[in-house]
């Protein structure tokens, strides 16, 4: 939204207010007899989003209608990965929420970039991988082994695809190559 703070109905008396310095109780400027919680706007340094497709200029179709656009509007820099890069993309062609290139700073082609989560219309959540993740989350040692297998032990996204994704996905394309398509410096 770009506004400095927002008032809302809720959270008065919650212990959350004791732990958050970005929320406080304030009088309504139009009627000071009433008070409510206001929350300071979040301004993340970077927002990371994954979408369905994008063109080389940086216009993005997130593939589903989603509030993720709020993250892009709030962040100083926006990094987007997509399943597919096309020559040109307009708002009218988008299946889901459209991010115009003015909101996008960095774009990368990363097939299966939502893995082990799902990409609506392309692939579902990798339930077997999620079970493995949960099993490895029981203690620090097991989780370190998971991280070694899926994060630290793979050189890049292509290696992750070959080692983790394509192993369980015979229908996926083994020749897909993630490449940085465009990079534009943030104006801020």
């Amino acid at each position, binding site marked *: 939204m770009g506004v400095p703070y927002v008032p809302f109905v*809720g959270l*008065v*008396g*919650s212990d959350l207010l004791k732990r958050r310095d970005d929320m406080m109780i304030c009088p309504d400027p139009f009627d000071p*007899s009433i008070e409510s919680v206001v929350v300071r706007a979040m301004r993340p340094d970077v927002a990371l989003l994954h979408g369905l497709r994008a063109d080389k200029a940086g216009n993005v179709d997130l593939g589903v209608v989603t509030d993720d656009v709020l993250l892009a509007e709030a962040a100083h820099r926006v990094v987007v990965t997509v399943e597919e890069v096309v020559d040109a993309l307009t708002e009218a062609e988008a299946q889901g929420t459209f991010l115009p290139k003015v909101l996008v700073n960095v774009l990368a082609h990363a097939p299966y970039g939502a893995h082990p989560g799902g990409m609506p219309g392309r692939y579902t959540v990798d339930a077997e991988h999620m079970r493995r993740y949960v099993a490895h989350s029981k203690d620090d040692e097991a989780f370190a082994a998971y991280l070694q297998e899926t994060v630290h032990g793979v050189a890049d996204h292509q290696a992750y695809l070959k080692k983790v994704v394509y192993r369980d996905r015979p229908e996926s394309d083994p020749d897909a190559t993630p490449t940085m398509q465009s990079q534009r410096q943030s104006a801020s």
Partner: protein
Amino acid sequence: MTAPAPEELMAIHLSREVRDGEISACGALSMIPAAGLLLAKHTHAPQADILILGSPAFFPFRTSRQFHYLAQRGDLGLFFVSGVQIDQQGNYNLHLLGQDHDHPDVRFPGGYGGGLIYYAARRTVVFRTEHSPRVFVEHVDFISAAGVTPPHMLRLGGPSKVVTPLATLAMDREAGVLKLESVHPPHTTEAVVAATGFDLGVTGAAPQTAPPTAEELRVLRAVVRPLMMETGTYPDWAAQHLAAAG
């Protein structure tokens, strides 16, 4: 007709809180309220608007943002929420267990939008499938959302009832505390008091909750169950926990 399962009984009790013509909703992981909402729609509340988050057939918004704006406007009549702990003041806890909030014994996912909707929906009914002293405590370890707020604070509504497998509690807005409203047969007032870690304001035997009618149970099984299975509204849960008609 076989006797109602615990989930069916609770769905019937929740359905009775829905008022005809109002907008009533439930959020994530709310299978029993979803069944209760649809049961109300197909019994006493045909003109109710039913919103079931995550159901493609019963959620008219593409994203949850519009749903929250609806609640903030005061247009949401009834919402269902649950809590790990619930206390006498109607505070609920979805965050953590333990007295040291920096080092909790157990950490839960938290509240998401409940901390807003509990104050914005005109009435919220808290549902809980376990009625025990560890759930119904004197004071919750962490207040995710408060049952009562000072009068000069902006608030459109609050807790109305708490429904469990044993009983229905009602919020006394004047006193700012939960009190025993009725006991579900065959349970007794003594059993409810023993299972509750705070004073329920009981002075004698509490009224008995009206048992499920044959029509409520029939519609739940013959209409709501297939409806949930056909519309992708917790279909696996409905198949497993609501009995097939017959």
